[in-house]
Structure formats: structure tokens, C-alpha cells
């Protein structure tokens, strides 16, 4: 069977797996953004806190994903749980770092001006600082999703959902007729999905960035 015949034949299954892959990555990214921006907001005023948060999250990123998934099996079992925990943990670093960098990069004069016209600290944070930091946070989120697309493939090893299933199926059936087709479908599928998601991010960035800093 040629690759295109294979794709035609398995189209509905590949489509479901692609959707599961993207939905796992997107959902975990959303959770990572909520937690990551929360951490960033909590520590950005303290130099030591920022350093500790960045150091800790970048240390997490050095951990091999296969090892982390392995460590999660005895604790969380197989399937969705270890996948979600691993994806959220890996997604944190770029988001936390970019949140801190973005918030720390806000001009002090702008902050003072906002306070001067009577905004509360919370108002300054939500209406001035976070909006100015948003492009940086969004970039971090974009990097996180690209990374998670690849890590989600390994999650198929612990019975996680997505296109990684095809890759591992191809591996276990090495030598049989469709093994290579399955591995190609899984790998190329993930690359295509990653590119599509990246395009979606470009659009989101355009419509959610404040007009004043869009640079048009």
C-alpha cells in the first residue's frame, strides 16, 4: 500500500487521533498559561522569587520527557493523567519566563502614571502591566505549544491519546506492511498540526494585542 492509499484508508482514525493530539496540547497549554501567568504575577516584584521561579522551571525543562513520564506511571497510572501532568509541567517554563520578563520590562514611568491617575494596584496589573506584557506571554505560550506537540507523541507510550499512537504502532509492527506508513503518518501529522497551530497563534496575537503596542 502506498502512503496515500494508507492515509485514505485510515483517514477517519487519523483524523480522530489528530483531534485528540491537538486538544490534549491545547487544553494543557491553557492550564499551563493559567498556572504560569499566576506564578509570574506572584514573583515578578521580587528579584529572588523571579530567579527561583526561572531556575526551577528551566531545571524542569532539562528533565527528559520519557523519564518524567516513567516517574509518573507509579504515581498516576497510565492514560490521560500522566500525559496531562507532564504536558503542563513542560509548558510552564517558557510561559513563566516570558511573563516575568514581560512584566519586568514594563516602563516604571507608565506604572507610576497609572498609579497617579488613581488606579488600584490590581487595576494597574490587569489593565496596564499584563496588557503590555501580553505579546511576551503569548510568545512564551507559542513556544510551549510547539514543544508540547512533540512531547505529546511520547505520551502514547503511557497510553496517552494522539498521533504518537501511530508512531509506536509502527515501531511494534516493524517489518510489517504498514509500519513505515504509520510512523510517517504520525510524524508528519504532528509537524503539520504544529505548523497549523503556529498559524492560529499568529492570528490570536494580531487580535488580542492592544492597539497601542501593535506597531502599525
Amino acid at each position: 500500500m502506498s502512503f496515500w492509499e494508507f492515509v485514505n484508508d485510515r483517514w477517519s482514525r487519523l483524523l480522530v487521533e489528530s483531534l485528540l493530539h491537538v486538544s490534549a496540547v491545547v487544553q494543557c497549554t491553557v492550564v499551563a498559561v493559567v498556572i504560569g501567568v499566576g506564578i509570574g504575577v506572584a514573583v515578578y516584584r521580587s528579584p529572588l522569587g523571579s530567579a527561583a521561579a526561572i531556575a526551577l522551571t528551566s531545571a524542569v525543562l532539562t528533565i527528559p520527557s520519557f523519564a518524567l513520564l516513567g516517574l509518573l506511571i507509579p504515581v498516576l497510572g497510565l492514560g490521560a493523567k500522566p500525559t496531562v501532568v507532564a504536558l503542563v509541567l513542560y509548558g510552564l517554563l517558557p510561559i513563566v519566563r516570558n511573563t516575568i520578563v514581560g512584566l519586568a520590562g514594563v516602563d516604571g514611568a507608565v506604572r507610576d502614571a497609572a498609579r497617579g491617575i488613581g488606579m488600584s494596584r490590581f487595576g494597574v496589573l490587569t489593565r496596564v502591566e499584563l496588557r503590555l506584557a501580553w505579546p511576551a506571554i503569548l510568545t512564551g505560550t507559542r513556544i510551549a505549544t510547539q514543544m508540547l506537540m512533540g512531547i505529546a507523541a511520547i505520551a502514547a507510550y503511557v497510553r496517552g491519546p494522539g498521533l504518537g499512537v501511530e508512531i509506536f504502532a509502527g515501531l511494534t509492527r516493524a517489518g510489517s506492511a504498514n509500519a513505515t506508513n504509520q510512523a510517517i503518518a504520525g510524524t508528519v501529522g504532528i509537524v503539520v498540526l504544529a505548523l497549523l497551530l503556529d498559524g492560529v497563534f499568529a492570528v490570536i496575537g494580531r487580535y488580542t494585542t492592544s492597539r497601542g503596542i501593535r506597531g502599525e
Partner: protein
Amino acid sequence: MTAAVAQRQRADRLRLLVQPIAVVVLVGGVLAWAFGQDLDSIERQSLNASSLVSATWDHLVISFVVTALVLVVAVPLGVVLTRRWARRAAPVFLGIATIGQASPAVGILVLFFLVSGLEGLWAAVLPIAFYTLLPVLRNTMVGLQGVDPALVDAGRGIGMSAGTVLRRIELPLAVPLILAGLRTALVHAVGVATLAVFVNGGGLGLLIDTGYKLARVPVLITGAVLAVGLALLVDWLGAVVETYLGPKGLR
């Protein structure tokens, strides 16, 4: 962005201090726990000094061969692609490398295995090297492009040849970025090398896989923690090299 730079430096200093201690405590603790368990005969087959050392050694060999390969390919390629006569080809190579990195590591590994039919060390090393090429290539190019053209002109002006300018001005100035790229590549390589077990390449992934398939938690955890410790240790060594081996004038 000076605040951001200061913050990064603080974070780096913090890791330089804490990371090796964390690795020793983590690995020591887990090894003590694993060997303190009442191990059955299957567990003893994986959890003994010689097989742990050989798995770690295999892992290190894969990682360092990958890094050497990346160094030999990416740095010269980066140099060539920043020369004036080859600049047009740069986007093509960067594009290929970007796609390489955007693709799932396990997919590339499995595909290469299925297509080439290779097994063992080289079946792991070649795809991992392809996968980790980008950071070094990009950092080499960015580092060389970031050299002040006035310095290059000055070099040419005092009679240096293009090659001498490259060797004595451009490359030394780009070294910090090249080293940063290499550190990223090495850490990537240690991480992806855990997947080498899928193509019979051995390494610490073997312990994880064995522990998982035979449902032996101590084996699984020992393999995973050794891999984590090794990654953190290699990253720390990279940070030390970056801090103390860069050109003195740029520190």
C-alpha cells in the same frame, strides 16, 4: 531589557549553586532506596552496579557522539552560511533545521529505524543529531552576524586575510553564543537518548522500559531518576563551561 538580563544571570547563578547538590541528593537517595528494597531476581538483573554503570555509559556515549557530530556539522555550516557568497542559501538550511526540530523526536527516531534498518548506536545517534542540529546552527549564525562590521573592516584594514579575520575576530566573538547552543544541544541529546531504547540503542531508557514492561517499579524509578540526574548534571557542566571558558574580554 537590562532587568531581564540581570534576572537571567541571577537565575543562572542560583542553578549553578543548587543543581549539583540536588542531583547528588536525588540520585543518592533513590539508589539507596532501590538497593534497600527486597529485590526479586528479575529486579536484581537490572539493578546491579555493572548494569547501571553500563546503561549510564551507553547513554553518555550516545549523547557525546551526538554532540560531537552536531559540533562538526553545525559550526562549519553556520560559518559557510554567513559568508557573503552563501548568504542566499541560509533560509533553506534554517528552514530544514526548523522543521527537524518541530517534528517529534520519537517520530524521527522510529522513522529512521524503519527506513534505514539500522539498529543500535548509529540508529540512535544520526536522527538525534539531526534533531538537535538547530540550536547550534542558529546560534553560530546569530553570533557571527552579530559581530560589529566595523571590527571586521578594522581587521581587514590592518592587513588580515578573510580567513584570519574569521579565526581571530569573528569566531572568538561568537563563542559565547556557540557554547550556549552547544549546551542546549547536549541537554536535548541526553533527553532524547532516553528514547534510544526503542531502536535497541541501550542507555538509561532501557531501565525505564524494562521496569515498565515487567511492572518492576524500582527498576523504572531508578532508570528515570538516573536519566534526570544525568540531564541536570550535564546541563550544570554546560553552565560551568559557559561561565568560565568564554573569551576573557567578553565576560
